[in-house]
């Protein structure tokens, strides 16, 4: 066992992760071995239509006879109330922000994602650890530390990144629900002008995603297109993946 206190530079969640396995720090009491399920993550900033696309994918997959489980960011039974409360009271700092995300993720990984994968479900994840990596990265959290922190995550079989440009992103977020404190990066004290802060934050976020798209080889989709065009592209790629991975397809109704 290593007694080094300095994190090795080459561990943690990174592009070398083997699809469907722990990135680098296996949870010792939860060995994975081989399992029949598939993990598909849909990443992207706010306003790219992730939940719409996931709902359509679920429908499409279930019609084909696949069991589908959805999991969503910060929606664990354990942590959701705490995260909501902490965000509304602005008591977070950049470390606790990331650690609360990690706790929520661990809870869902152990209780939802891994059991579903072992039972043969296709898990559709609305956002994945890349959201934490991006938000932490923008806030200046040490990159190696946060990658080690999420080293216990499973590298998804597929990661789709719904990408939009800064201008479209800003308009969509404003249209959907306006700027909120955290999504404007106001905790980062980028400036007193909330709009300028919001813009600077979203721009930095897009930059983080762009660098991860290379690092983790995301499948990048242009999210400015129509919903059904994006959906067709998702289905085409997922169908090809499922066909080639020779997943044990459940019996069909037809």
């Amino acid at each position: 066992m290593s007694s080094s206190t300095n994190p090795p530079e080459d561990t943690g969640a990174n592009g070398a992760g083997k699809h469907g396995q722990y990135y680098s720090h296996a949870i010792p009491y939860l060995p994975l071995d081989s399992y029949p399920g598939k993990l598909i993550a849909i990443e992207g900033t706010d306003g790219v239509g992730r939940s719409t696309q996931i709902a359509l994918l679920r429908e499409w997959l279930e019609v084909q006879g696949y069991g589908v489980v959805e999991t969503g960011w910060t929606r664990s039974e354990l942590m959701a109330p705490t995260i909501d409360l902490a965000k509304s009271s602005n008591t977070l700092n950049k470390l606790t922000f990331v650690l609360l995300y990690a706790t929520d993720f661990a809870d869902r990984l152990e209780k939802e994602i891994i059991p579903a994968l072992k039972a043969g479900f296709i898990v559709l994840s609305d956002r994945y650890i890349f959201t934490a990596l991006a938000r932490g990265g923008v806030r200046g959290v040490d990159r190696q530390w946060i990658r080690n922190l999420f080293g216990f995550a499973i590298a998804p079989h597929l990661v789709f990144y719904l990408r939009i440009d800064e201008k479209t992103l800003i308009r969509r977020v404003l249209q959907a629900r306006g700027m909120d404190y955290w999504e404007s990066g106001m905790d980062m004290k980028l400036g007193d002008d909330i709009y300028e802060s919001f813009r600077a934050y979203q721009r930095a976020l897009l930059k983080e995603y762009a660098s991860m798209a290379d690092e983790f080889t995301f499948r990048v989709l242009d999210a400015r297109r129509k919903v059904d065009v994006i959906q067709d592209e998702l289905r085409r790629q997922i169908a090809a993946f499922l066909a080639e991975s020779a997943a044990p397809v459940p019996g069909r109704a037809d």
Partner: protein
Amino acid sequence: MEGIDGSGKTTQLALLAKWLKNAGHPVFQTEWNSSALVKAATKTGKKKNSLTPMTFSLLHATDFADRLLYNVIPPLKAGMIVLADRYTYTAFARDTARGVDRRWVRELYSFAVKPDLAVYFRVPIDVSVDRLLARRIKLKFYEAGMDMGWSSNAIESFRIFQGKVLDEYDRLVDEYGLSVVNAVGSITEQQRVFRRLVSQHLEIEHQDELIDESA
């Protein structure tokens, strides 16, 4: 201050704080798992016994990060002596005993401030159990490691779990150079050893003079 439940470290810490304050040192105390931030989640998780070794570990790390930024670093910057009732070593020992990856939990806490002095109150498991039982303390589910399912008997589970924690602490003594106090001796004797250790890091050898000056 490190040590398993029933090691007497909280008693020792209180006596040390009294001594330091008497000598005119500004003291700030912080206690493991005491931040308001994760209180609700920890309570819910404990009540439902739904915490896993990983979420248990991460909740404590969140608590630690919160306290580090509000209760450790500011008083240190203000020139105070921070007395921490448990520190990162508690997580290293407990989480590893629960089956969390040893390396991962060390990396998790790599943002922590390295203490100037880390004192470990070492006590055999029998002594610890006797002390806790004598105080009629009901062993709690997670403190007794009952989440691990090793025994349905709380005392037996405590013995097994804390036995593993003690093994981890022994490893930490070498790895991080913890100062060990034999916590079987009398309270007064332990405190004498403790104060000697602390005084090596402070200029308070002449305690009586300092008290006279401030009087």
